[in-house]
């Protein structure tokens, strides 16, 4: 039993922002009550967690991550990745299927679930491939994977190859009540590109993809969501035009949602200087795209913040910019960047921030997320003002590809509690 005392509870599901105590009993939340008013007699024996000056929130979900196991264990494993996730305040992560082999069948899903049970610090919710091998030809065994534990399907790393297959996957997933998560990208417009097209790519002589490489595919996907009635979630949305498509879809009442990454609302294409730590897909966008994302985060168009944690071992990243793989680390800077860019600048409220990490992604996945009696004992405790500097060398991740190394922050996760157990606690506590 853990009694979290003296904290400020932020619970978007009930719109609660108050000083509350939270009692965890085993894997469930036993009681949430005003300070000192916990009624359960057993609370007297509980381990006390003093959260004075800290925010107590439902457990954070990162709905878009790459854990690299099976197949690329030099870059990350379920063990190291989830340790990094716990340090980032995440109690659950949704791992994308682009492993080796691809998670396109129930035995791979079961392997991931088994490895998670044996080694993970936080909950691991796999996402299954939409097509066999994510090759865009045949539909994967989605029902069997659902039975084994997947929470969504995606061919992430690329879009579902054709409009026809996307439509079929959407029809099927609607019948299975699974969201389709789409890496929207017109691969012909993006072919060969290593960053966003613009003045920076032109100056650097690096091949660029236009913003339209994303937004034309979002337009396709939104139209197909309307055709099929499926739940469509746009991954790592980065362009203003894409956001407008999502806004239109929502205004039509379609079941369309989207996520934005911290790096896309923090950095822009001008930050790319032949440094492969700034290379990811979708690439860092234009200044006006970043402005649009900030507006979408504030006005509710964006449903979730997801980090797209994408570790690559140093040998893979320490090459010519053109040859480096896409992707950067995300877990340990996600909350701090969100506080820095969104809350401390007054663009969104703290409640909205918590929503973007909890009820937002949960809704997309068809789940609940609330600090209430009977709910899973997943809690994220964080500070909004603790001063620290990120040093990637200290990360439990196996990789080091972060553009935010040595960035100074105010605010950080302080403890991550998963199923009633402290998965990670800040060294200052």
């Amino acid at each position, binding site marked *: 039993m853990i009694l979290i005392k003296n904290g400020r509870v932020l619970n978007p599901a009930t719109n609660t922002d108050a000083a509350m105590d939270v009692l965890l009993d085993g894997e469930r939340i036993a009681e949430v009550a005003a300070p000192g008013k916990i009624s359960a007699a057993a609370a007297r024996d509980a381990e006390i967690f003093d959260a004075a000056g800290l925010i107590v929130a439902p457990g954070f979900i990162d709905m878009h991550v790459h854990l690299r196991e099976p197949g690329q264990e030099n870059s990350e494993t379920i063990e190291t990745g989830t340790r990094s996730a716990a340090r980032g305040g995440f109690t659950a992560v949704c791992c994308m299927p682009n492993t080796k082999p691809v998670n396109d069948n129930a035995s791979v899903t079961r392997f991931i679930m088994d490895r998670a049970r044996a080694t993970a610090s936080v909950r691991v919710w796999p996402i299954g491939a939409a097509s066999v091998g994510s090759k865009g030809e045949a539909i994967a065994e989605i029902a069997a994977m659902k039975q084994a534990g997947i929470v969504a399907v995606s061919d992430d790393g690329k879009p579902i190859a054709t409009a026809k297959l996307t439509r079929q996957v959407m029809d099927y997933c609607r019948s299975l009540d699974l969201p389709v998560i789409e890496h929207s990208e017109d691969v012909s417009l993006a072919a*060969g590109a290593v960053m966003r*097209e*613009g*003045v920076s*790519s*032109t*100056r*650097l*002589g*690096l091949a660029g993809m236009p913003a339209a490489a994303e937004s034309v595919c979002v337009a396709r996907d939104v139209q197909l969501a309307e055709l099929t009635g499926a739940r469509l979630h746009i991954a790592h949305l980065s362009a203003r035009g894409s956001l407008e498509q999502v806004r239109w879809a929502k205004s039509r009442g379609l079941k369309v949602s989207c996520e934005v990454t911290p790096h896309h609302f*923090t*950095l*822009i294409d*001008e*930050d790319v*200087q*032949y*440094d492969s*730590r*700034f290379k990811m897909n979708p690439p860092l966008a234009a*200044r006006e795209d*970043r*402005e649009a994302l900030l507006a979408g985060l504030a006005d509710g168009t964006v449903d979730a913040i997801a980090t797209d944690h994408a570790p690559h071992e140093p*040998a893979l990243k*320490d*090459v*010519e*910019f*053109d*040859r480096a793989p896409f992707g950067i680390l995300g877990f340990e800077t996600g909350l701090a960047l969100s506080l820095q860019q969104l809350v401390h*600048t007054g663009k969104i409220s703290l409640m909205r921030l918590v929503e973007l990490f909890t009820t937002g992604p949960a809704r997309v996945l068809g789940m609940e997320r609330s600090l209430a009696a009977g709910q899973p004992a997943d809690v994220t405790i964080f500070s909004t003002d603790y001063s620290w500097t*990120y040093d990637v060398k200290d990360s439990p991740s196996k990789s080091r590809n*972060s*553009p*935010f*190394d*040595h*960035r*100074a922050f105010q605010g950080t996760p302080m403890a991550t509690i998963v199923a009633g157990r402290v998965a990670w606690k800040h060294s200052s506590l």
Partner: protein
Amino acid sequence: MTHRFRDLLALEPLNADELTFLLDQSKSFQEIQRHPLKKLAVLRGKTIALAFFETSTRTRISFGTAASRLGADTMNLQAEASSLKKGESLLDTVHTLDAMKPDCLVMRHGASGAPEFVARHLEIPVINAGDGTHEHPSQGLLDALTIRDRKGTIENLNITILGDIKHSRVARSNIHLLSKFGCKFTLCGPAMWVPRELENIGPEGARIRRVFRIEEALEGADVVLALRVQNERLHEPALSLNDYILLYQLSAERMRHAKRDAIVLHPGPLNRGIEITPEVADSAQSCVLEQVTNGIAVRMALLFLLAAGGSDDDKQAAGEADANPLRNRRSTDSKDAGAQKDVKDP
């Protein structure tokens, strides 16, 4: 004035004084090209590594000749013969070269930014001999030297560039250099090869415009730079040669739109009858062969400035390090990058 360069990776970061200094240094090496005995001993005992990860004949020979005329030895690495084909990383390859203790690395590579990436990992000076579609600094300098010789100045000239500017490192180096002296640029070619972003790649206040009709682009030009239409490297998208010739071939008739005393530059090798007619290439206005000669002078100056120096400690003792913008940029390397790379809220 002592020089303040450690590497030469690009012309973009250099200011007008620094560029003038490099051109003035090259001037003294131009004399030597006319001398019957061309060999100096200033780099005797020094070794220059020439690493060409992309095919090159002219630039490689030019740097090699420059090194030998300074008395230096060279070691050559060419892509075909290298272990890159065997899967060795670029970093391992240059570290291997570095272990043979050259005093300077001259490098060409197909990936934009590759010399900058390598320079972050090496102590010896790195000279960019052309990287991808980014820059070709020694070409930019030799073009400016040629223009200065012919026109007496590189200030406030009208420069017209013709061809696939999007993929041209020569065009970028020219723009970055000459814009700092008030030159106005007119970029002309098929629209796909001249994207509008090019108008904004120059320094603050640079005057760069796009024009799609060649006669209009040549109007009032002091200098015409015709780029090579490459067959071996891809123009993306490819264009029918017939269309290119029809719309953009530099002919004597079209040259009449330029100023009477306009000069013509071409980075070579020429495709006679494609981007330029033989008549123009061989005219008195053409500077093609002077460019080649000046290339050796510029490269001698660069090698002399960068490879002749003592150890880093000596340079630091001489107080040069702090004044060197390139050195300073290198020293920031990985540590501060994240902290610095922040977007300012408008």
